[in-house]
């Protein structure tokens, strides 16, 4: 089964890394540059899971998760927060905003895929 993933990160490098990690594993990857862009991209697709960065311009990860959860059809879409910040309060904050899980950068492909499977099969 091909899983459809939306990855939102303002760093081109990170978007490329995510794509590189997931494509060989058979994922279908869409990307967006920030929260606002992510919402726009989301209009055209129905991802099985969303990966989002926290620190982004225009709309940060928290705002983005909030906005996604506000949409009826994405109330239960798994959202993984991708962040370099491992601090517990950030996880808590992400969860409060509605994040499903998190993964700490730098990640390797296995780690990322495993995290995705934990939330989206």
């Amino acid at each position, binding site marked *: 089964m091909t899983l459809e993933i939306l990855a939102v990160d303002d760093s081109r490098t990170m978007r490329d890394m995510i794509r590189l990690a997931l494509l060989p594993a058979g994922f279908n990857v869409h990307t967006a540059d920030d929260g606002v862009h992510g919402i726009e991209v989301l209009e055209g697709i129905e991802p099985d899971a969303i990966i989002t960065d926290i620190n982004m311009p225009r709309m940060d990860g928290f705002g983005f998760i909030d906005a996604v959860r506000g949409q009826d059809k994405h109330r239960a879409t798994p959202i993984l927060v991708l962040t370099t910040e*491992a601090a517990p309060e950030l996880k808590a904050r992400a969860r409060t905003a509605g*994040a499903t899980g998190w993964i700490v950068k*730098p990640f390797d492909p296995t780690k990322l895929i495993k995290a995705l499977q934990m939330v989206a099969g």
Partner: protein
Amino acid sequence: MTDSNDPMAEIRASFFIECEELLEALQDGLQALDEGATDSETINVVFRAVHSIKGGAGAFGLEALVRFAHRFETALDEVRAGRMSPDGNALKLFFQCADHLSDLVRVSRDAGPLPEDETGKLLAQLDTLLGDEGGSAGEEEAEEDIDFQPATLSFDLDLGGDEDTDLPPLDIEPIGEESKSKFLIKFKPESELFETGNEPFHMLRTLDSMGECIFTCHTENLPALDELSPESSYLYWTVELIADVEIAEITSAFEFVEGLCVLEITQDADVSQTSETDAEVLSDTPVDSLSDSLDIEPETPDPAPQQVVETEAEEKKPAPEAAAPLAEKDVKTAQKAAPPAAPAKSVVRVDLDRIERLVNLVGELVINQAMLSQSLESSGLSPHSDAMNGLEEFQRLTRDIQDSVMMIRAQPVKSLFQRMSRIVREASAAVGKDVRLITDGEGTEVDKTVIERLADPLTHMIRNAVDHGLESSEDRIAAGKPAQGRVNLTAAHRSGRVVIEVSDDGGGINRPKVLQIATDKGLIAPDANLSETEIDNLLFLPGFSTATVVSDLSGRGVGMDVVRTAIQALGGRITISSTPGSGTTFSISLPLTLAVLDGMVVQVADETLVLPLNVVIETLTLSKNDVEMVRPGAHVVRVRSGFVPLFDLGKELGYRAPIEDYEGSVVLLIAHEDEGRAAIIIDSIQDQRQVVIKGLDDSFYRAPGIAAATILGDGQIALILDTSDIISNAIGSPGAPQSQNLAGLSA
């Protein structure tokens, strides 16, 4: 070089390009803070830039970069959190750190030697800063550093929240006999678990993948169908897992739902011992397959949700809910403070080589079109023929294409200016002066090549301004000026050219001293009577240096003569103006692009030459009476009321002996630096047209008076003249006429 077959190498290359952008944003942000910005978005941008560099660097195992960026980020986070104010020394340190980060990025990219001393020094300063203002931050960071060891190729799903449960990597199998354990797991999701998009199925499946599982789904809490709330959680599971795993690994399957469920894990001893303990487990509907367990229909509705005793295994953290309202508020505030979203500009990144190739091809096209025009015109076709009409359209299109291609290479001078702010910081620190750089016109676009080649001369000029231009703070105060010196760097488009100015509010050029040095060095005659401008221009003489003591900064044998040469090589001019007591301004005027030039094509001694059209004031045909001899070999031509020095271009270029008879000679009246004019004799004017400028490789021979070359319609190369250089050289040569009009020239 990027190996196109290696996606990682490509991403790596792309990362370093991104770093440059981030460093620019960082520089901008710090600049804004320096100018008094206090909004949270500016601080966020600064933070984010460092943060993103760290993130990417971690992915490529660039440890030095990660470590430095991490500590830098920590300090910035203190600012972001409002625990530290970004002013004075802190900001100064941040600038230094940004500079150093930029160095580290470059070193990492080029795999050069790490500037460890500098890194250590700055890290220590950051520590001091954090120690002073950041409370225990330094201590925390020491632990968090461990997260950023780039070697992360393990299943490290223990994400720093609970340091005491380090997981063994999955791929390392214990050697020796199997030691399977039996675990009893009770998993009861809370309603909140579903709100975060989590799904119990995936967690149970993860357990299933660990070993042999017996799942039991407990449905006794299910309410009657009409009371069932879709938002609530009623089911819970017990799982009997026999697997060769640690408890921590089982916990990790529930990592994301920690605090959102009741999770009890008990470990029996070895499987061999007993399996009786599972008897106590409520076993309504034991199933041995996960999918079966999930197919269970609600059978035994129970209206009252069971009160659950909080006995969450491995749970140590404070309830996240406590932090929640505050966190939400933060998000909203941050969003409100953010400036209106700028529309994202769509950008394509293109290898510069490809653009160079395109520029060259367009150049070829222009030449080709010229050749075609030439042959069609000489074929005697009617100007109204289809071919000639088509040609006209072709010419127009060619020109449009050319303009568009040139636009591709244009880029704002901002990056250049940012480099200069670093030069000011370093230079002012080196000479112990307090200097502020004020830039203007950063958005001014110039050909990329021009920008690159401006860096060195501009660096030198900026250092000069800091080192020689500005007085010491004491002297400034004594002169009634603010202690802090100012260096202004501006760029602007002015009548088809770019003008870049470097000015300082220092003491101005010390003309008596300049005169003295020039005399002492034998650069001018002791009795020379020079105007102020002429004295100022002595600075451009080779071998001139005003520093009595050669300083570390600007005295490395590179003088303003080198600056002038570099500017001239770009087809530019540099002029000085200075007011004693209030400062000096160097003004550089450059062509917008190095690639095209509106030229006048002329013939001299069988050679075809091109002059920039904008220096030609008018053309004259001489009659004998127009020319006067000042002394043998030096002539002037009378143009209306004034006399203008006259030069024979063929002679000046060494192409032929000077002509004897001026009668009927064609003369171009040329604008020269400042207000000066000169007349040059040519054989004939051929054409006025746009030519494609081809750089002359002057790495082993630089011809005086030649700015560049172009390729003509017949494929031959024609040289493009630097008239200013020619006239300067001609005036400098013995017997050349002197003119008051030609101010600002010497030697």
